[in-house]
């Protein structure tokens, strides 16, 4: 890998993630609009929102950690995108592997938690406490899924996993139960209903976002695009055979994101303990059964 190639990857991998992520946000909002018998936002709406938020004339900060929290939240995802291989660009996926990636995905949460913490707003703190609890809930099935996949493909590197699936069959065919468990975990990871406890506007006024204005809010919007993209591409790489080109990868990723979204708007949110209960019951059970087959 020459330096120039690497530089290009460092720039383009997050950029592609951002652009695709914005389309996923648009898709999400369009799906919700259709279910609610509406038209929904125009095509460039996610971009308008982000530019508008970054273009705010004034914004408040509760201190340096508030700023750093947002930097960590966005930066953590930018780092994670480089660990997530896409067709033609592998980034440094060979140096980290899927365990490192799953740890990287916790850094934005921690960053946001720090930033929100300094806002000194209990709504935000409750939101973070719920978000971390939700992380505890969905990470258990998620890590089982990662374990199963890594064991099955005999590799912790996503490149290796994709190669295996390209040669053999897709993961979803070989490990259907694990794939279903993965979808559950995905729903929790995206924080959509019924696992939407940490935003909960009617209870804690959007929780972590309560004191976010201007570019701070913009950072969180950017983070959401990355989040959707990462979830979609990661799941597609683990179970849907990744892709040899963007033309084959992206439809899978969109499909993966569309599935949780279409059920999300049909449900209220669970309480925190029910989230843990549900996520530790069904997906973990499915994952363990599946692991019993794999091992």
């Amino acid at each position: 890998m020459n330096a120039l190639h690497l530089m290009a990857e460092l720039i383009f991998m997050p950029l592609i993630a951002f652009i695709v992520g914005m389309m996923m946000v648009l898709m999400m909002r369009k799906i919700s609009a259709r279910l609610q018998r509406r038209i929904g936002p125009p095509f460039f709406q996610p971009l308008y929102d982000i530019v508008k938020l970054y273009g705010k004339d004034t914004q408040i900060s509760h201190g340096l950690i508030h700023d750093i929290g947002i930097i960590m939240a966005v930066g953590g995802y930018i780092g994670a995108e480089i660990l997530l291989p896409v067709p033609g660009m592998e980034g440094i996926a060979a140096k980290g592997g899927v365990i490192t990636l799953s740890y990287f995905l916790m850094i934005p949460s921690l960053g946001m938690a720090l930033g929100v913490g300094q806002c000194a707003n209990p709504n935000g703190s409750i939101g973070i406490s719920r978000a971390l609890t939700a992380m505890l809930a969905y990470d258990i099935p998620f890590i089982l899924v990662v374990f199963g996949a890594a064991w099955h493909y005999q590799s912790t590197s996503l490149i290796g996993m994709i190669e295996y699936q390209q040669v053999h069959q897709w993961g979803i065919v070989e490990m259907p139960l694990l794939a279903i468990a993965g979808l559950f975990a995905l729903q929790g990871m995206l924080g959509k209903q019924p696992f939407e406890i940490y935003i909960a506007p009617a209870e804690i006024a959007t929780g972590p976002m309560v004191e976010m204005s201007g570019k701070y809010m913009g950072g969180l919007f950017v983070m959401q695009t990355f989040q959707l993209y990462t979830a979609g591409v990661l799941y597609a790489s683990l179970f849907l055979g990744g892709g040899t080109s963007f033309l084959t990868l992206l439809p899978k990723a969109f499909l993966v994101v569309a599935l949780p979204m279409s059920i999300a708007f049909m449900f209220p949110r669970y309480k925190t303990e029910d989230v843990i209960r549900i996520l530790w019951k069904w997906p973990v059970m499915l994952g363990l059964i599946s692991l019993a087959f794999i091992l």
Partner: protein
Amino acid sequence: MRPENYQAVKLGDSNEYEIFIGPNHPGIEGNYAFRLMLDGDIVVSGKADAGYLHRGFEKLMEGRLWIQNLAIVPRICVPDPAPMEVAYSMAVEEIMGIEAPIRAQWIRTMQLELSRVAAHLFTFGGHAATTGMYTPMFWGVADRDLVLDLFEDFTGGRVYSIYNIPGGVRRELPPEFLQKLSNLLDYLESRQNDYDNLLFTNQVFVERAKGCGALTQSQALELSVTGPNLRACGLAYDVRRDDPYLVYDELEFDIPRQKHGDAYSRILVRRDELFQSIRILRQIIERLPSIKGKIRTPIPNPLSWNVRKGEAYARVESSKGELAYYVVSDGGDKPYRVHVRGPSSMHAVQTLEFLAKGARLEDVAQIMFSLDACPPEVDR
């Protein structure tokens, strides 16, 4: 606020902290506030804080003519304004000793029931939204809009119709109106299945709503809870049936009730009531064409109309519960005293505080919306 409010004070040793629900909060219905003292996520105590919508209605009405007041009464409860006009008109009629013509009474009944349909459709969405499900709100409000279209058709106003007047109603129904109404009722009934699947039998929603904010019947009676909230506790009390007004004693309808008194029972009662209202409206559609006659008993020149001395307590069943107007006249051209007894003044203050105590933070908004409290009735 005053500068002294910002001068730092030493905080006590308690680990409880405060959360402000409202006035600017999605978990509050309207411009109202609820201060919670929390320990973890358990509410230690809640304190209602009203007055954000206070306009001094009762004072305003003392300064306006009898007829002028009709313009402002509906504004006391925005989601369900029709019962306000009717109750006020009924009170004035009682003092005057006149009675609205029978056709006007049927039209009033129709207006009240339509308003109830609209209010309940609005409530479902609000209740569901507090648990994080927004789709019923989008559906419910859009369907309510169709009801408002009918209001506009026969009264001229979408929300505030100001259609009643002491002695009757202002205008005759437009042609083909009953056909439109019938079509709307068909449409609403066709949506029943969708709403049931989406909301009333949604497993997650049922799990959230069951047991949330449960009142026993004796607690409800002690707190003067009325309307659907009381019926959800098992007491089939309805002003329409027990203190009949207008033509309700000629109509056939059931009084739905539930046993458990929790949020789920309350929303189920409202759902059933919605369909009972549709049933009543169907009967009205059937019988109204055969009832001919005037729509208004003539009253003197309203600009110099001195209502004779007396007092009246008029009660109607609004979508929230028992609504009453106590009107006192000293024989002048303006009311001497008007007292509005909104059902929410019982639900939104004492009952809410009572139910919030010991509840979970997750449930507070749901409790408030499931009580269907309407803050302007508290503030007036």
